[in-house]
């Protein structure tokens, strides 16, 4: 399969926006289908996969640490007045633990990764497309989809759950700081209280959400970059679309996931 065969730009121009939407949808599903084929059939690009896992984790770690810590700290601070009205400030660790693990950590990590990793993937692949580096891989008998797309999508899918639990942990440290200063609670008491109401389903649900978010961010970034039009403007558009589309999809997926997992909770 040559690049041209899967390029949306080569399809006949549809007459309506709706038609255009369905044509794009068809190409997106074709792209996703090709990912599953290329990712799980040999030969495998282990070295590049490891490099991408490191890059994605490393690129996001500092920002995630800062954002996670601040979120935990601020969330605790803002929740205290409401709980103290009922004399229930002792519930703070539990509230923060559940909020972080169930929603805040996956969502925050997803949104940060969409901005940081999604834009980077979109711009990198877009730039490679524009400067014919992807074509150069094709003609040197290397499958660029396997090397560039499959590795990045797999790496983001693997790395996102790790980053999510890392965010939750750092967020709890932020919350601990606030609770320790205000209530003088010890770390052991805080974590016992924070973790006692977290169920196995919460952990599974967060992991699944993180996997879905990671896959979405990378597949959107790769799709936009791989199909960016010629020129530097195309690279900018690819990076921008990668972020905007991934963020939108993450919110939609969050709503769907919450609905599905709430069925199990009841």
């Amino acid at each position, binding site marked *: 399969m040559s690049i*041209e065969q899967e390029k949306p730009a080569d399809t006949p121009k549809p007459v309506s926006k709706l038609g255009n939407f369905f044509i794009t949808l068809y190409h997106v599903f074709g792209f996703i289908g090709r990912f599953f084929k290329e990712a799980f059939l040999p030969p495998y690009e282990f070295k590049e996969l490891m490099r991408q896992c490191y890059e994605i984790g490393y690129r996001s770690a500092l920002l995630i640490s800062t954002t996670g810590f601040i979120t935990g700290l601020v969330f605790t601070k803002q929740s205290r007045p409401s709980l103290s009205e009922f004399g229930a400030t002792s519930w703070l660790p539990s509230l923060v633990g559940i909020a972080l693990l169930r929603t805040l950590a996956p969502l925050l990590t997803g949104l940060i990764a969409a901005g940081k990793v999604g834009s980077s993937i979109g711009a990198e692949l877009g730039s490679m497309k524009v400067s014919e580096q992807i*074509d150069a891989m*094709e003609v*040197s*008998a*290397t499958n660029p989809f396997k090397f560039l797309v499959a590795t990045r999508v797999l790496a983001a899918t693997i790395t996102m759950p790790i980053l999510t639990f890392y965010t939750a942990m750092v967020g709890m440290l932020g919350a601990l700081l606030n609770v320790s200063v205000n209530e003088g609670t010890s770390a052991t008491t805080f974590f016992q209280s924070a973790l006692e109401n977290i169920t196995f389903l919460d952990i599974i649900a967060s992991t699944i959400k993180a996997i879905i978010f990671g896959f979405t961010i990378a597949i959107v970034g790769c799709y936009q970059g791989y199909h960016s039009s010629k020129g530097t403007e195309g690279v900018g558009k690819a990076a921008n679309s990668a972020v905007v589309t991934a963020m939108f999809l993450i919110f939609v997926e969050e709503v769907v996931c919450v609905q599905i997992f709430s069925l199990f909770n009841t």
Partner: protein
Amino acid sequence: MTSKNMTDFSAEKVIEIKELDKAFGSYQVLEGANLDLYKGENLVVLGKSGTGKSVLIKIIVGLLRPDSGLVNVLGQKVDEISYQELLDLRLRIGFSFQNSALYDSMTVRDNLEFPLVRNRKDLTKSEVNALIEEMLDAVGLAQTINQMPSELSGGQRKRIGIARTLILKPEIMLYDEPTAGLDPITSKEINKLINDVQERYHTSAIIITHDLTCAKEVGNRVAMLMERRFERQGSFEQIFNSGDQLAQPFFDYNFIQ
């Protein structure tokens, strides 16, 4: 400046193109184009910008699909073979891009190593290193081995691009505008390199250009792409001296004697 020997037409055809059509939407780029490349020859494809020269070699290497017509490369019909067969065929074809298309996140060494380690798994690490050094020597840029592409000049990038292509020892070389954007001295060095590659590695080559000096120095034969097909083919002198009404304006405009 001397021209090269004319093509040996008794040699085997390594590329055969018949009645090739290609359009992008309503814009017809190639229509009924016929072209043969004989073993061991350097064939220069001359033509104005936008006449489909680059499209032609992208079709040959399977980056673009023809609308109709026959494209036979080393005995295989490019648009009819499977993707794996196409990848195998590409190992026998080298493609030098107009803008070099070096992987800008990799060093020169990694650029050369990239196609090698993926396609020649039989080679040991020391054999890979030896091949990289041989190719860099062949293009006269052994000292750049640890540099990044952004640190190289335009001419150096072209040479590294050619070295990366040569490392798989292809039978056919496709050069897309090898001297575009280069000063005359560097262009001359690239022309010499193309001739060296032909002699040293016994390649057959299609050289896409609108640089007449390049055409004269490297081409055993010249094919002029005009009006969507190859209207004139022959030695450089045959076309230059023909007084042909279609070809002459191109020569008058382009050539400084």
